[in-house]
């Protein structure tokens, strides 16, 4: 007989056979499968037989019911489907029972409008159970892309001449704006100053400066487009002089 195996993380908590009577899943004690967790609705979902298939139905639960990480309202269960209810997983299996009840085949990764979304969790889950020692190329890819990029070095701006309200700025933002506008981090003061004079942007490990309405020169050289900044560069922008340091 098919069954639902209740799991929390890697731990198997219990099993529940699915026969001709519907199985109800929820937090309330009168369900056939009780999951006592605040993420689970009182009456969360149910599984019932329809012909020789088993159908999972979400009972308009607050946090939803997911099959293989996709939200479902109603879903025909297939061998190995992982049903997520709150933080608990229900594995649907018909193994060691009648093998004849496998419904019409569907692709493992559903083809949707030509474009498909790889279920990374499902993929990792499958790989982990099949062979933990041999990560497939796909697993390696996922692992690599998950690594955050290295922290950039710290850039600072020291105000050598002119009034911006602050003597020194740590370039914490991805883009630091210099100008009169409220949105500028380095605020220029004065009637004729441009709203946005220039922007300093983090680019990989370094920083660049782009003139955006003010006259900008770096070490006395006037620049028109985006230029890389080196530690010690002297920047003159709209009447103020700034020193850039990278550490």
């Amino acid at each position, binding site marked *: 007989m098919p069954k639902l195996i209740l799991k929390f993380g890697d731990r198997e908590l219990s099993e529940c056979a699915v026969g001709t009577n519907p199985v109800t899943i929820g937090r309330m004690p009168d369900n056939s499968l009780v999951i006592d967790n605040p993420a689970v609705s009182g009456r969360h979902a149910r599984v019932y037989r329809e012909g020789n298939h088993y159908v999972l139905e*979400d009972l*308009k639960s607050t946090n*939803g019911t997911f099959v293989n*990480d*996709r*939200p*479902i*309202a*109603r*879903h025909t269960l297939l061998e190995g489907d992982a049903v997520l209810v709150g933080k608990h997983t229900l594995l649907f299996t018909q193994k060691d029972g009648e093998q004849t009840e496998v419904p019409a085949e569907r692709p493992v*990764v*559903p083809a*949707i*409008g*030509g*474009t*498909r*979304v*790889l279920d*990374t969790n499902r993929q990792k889950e499958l790989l982990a159970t099949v062979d933990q020692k041999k990560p497939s*190329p*796909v697993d*390696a*890819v*996922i692992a*690599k*892309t998950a690594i955050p990029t290295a922290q950039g070095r710290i850039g600072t701006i020291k105000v050598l001449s002119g009034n911006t309200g602050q003597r020194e700025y740590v370039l*914490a*933002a*991805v*883009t630091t*704006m210099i*100008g009169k*506008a409220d*949105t500028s981090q380095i605020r220029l003061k004065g009637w*004729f*100053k*441009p*709203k*946005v004079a220039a*922007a300093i*942007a983090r680019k990989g490990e370094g920083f660049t400066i*782009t003139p*955006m*309405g*003010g*006259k900008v020169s770096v070490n006395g050289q006037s620049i028109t*487009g*985006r230029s890389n900044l080196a530690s010690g560069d002297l920047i003159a922008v*709209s*009447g103020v002089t700034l020193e850039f340091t990278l550490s």
Partner: protein
Amino acid sequence: MRLKVGVATSVGRVRQTNEDAYLVRADQGLFVVCDGMGGAAAGEVASQLAVETIAAQVANGGLIGAEHRGFQPRTAGLGKAIEAANGVIIARARDEQAHAGMGTTVVGMWFGDGLASIAHVGDSRAYLRNESGFEALTTDHSLVEAQVKAGLINREQSLQSEHQNILLRALGRDSEIDVELSETTVAIGDRVLLCTDGLTRTVSDEGLAAALDKFLGDPQGACDHLIEMANNNGGPDNVTAVVVEFQGSRLSKVFQKVLGS
């Protein structure tokens, strides 16, 4: 800076329906392109829900002061709007069985004060054309892109791969969505192209750049031309292009010259 905008979309030569959606709000500097997926009209619903939700989030002003990892508030706000769209799509898919499993890609630009905030999920792209070249502002969240990054295949192999249509991220999949954000400064004369993969799989980067240059000053002409190129190359998929050209107002140019500073 003034924005001159063009937009065009086409069902292509093979598909029966157009699941792409776009949003053009030049007055707000907001532009979005989405490529929906999911059978039985669900893809159209997902992409449309995404653009509507993003438009509403930006319009109601609730994103002001948003923060995210050192990004400008507008950038962080665009990310928040996309996260909201993801939630709306998931909720709709849960409530309406016909829409179960729907999803969409998204690429958006929110421009203000000389800075273009870019956000994306999936394989819809943003490009910047300026004096120094033609630059991709986004990196696809796709299996082949990840394989290239990991050094498992090279760029040429990726263009031939049978796995080109496998995405690693899309809206409507997971309630925790990782929206990729970036910022770029733009100057007068620069152009930004937002497009779906129906364009980038049929026209090379060189072709895209050449079309943008040929129609400098005429972003609508550029969009129409890009769509025609995609369809002439078989039009295998829906295709959508938004081109934003950054132009200087005459008055501001005069002021800048006079005031120098």
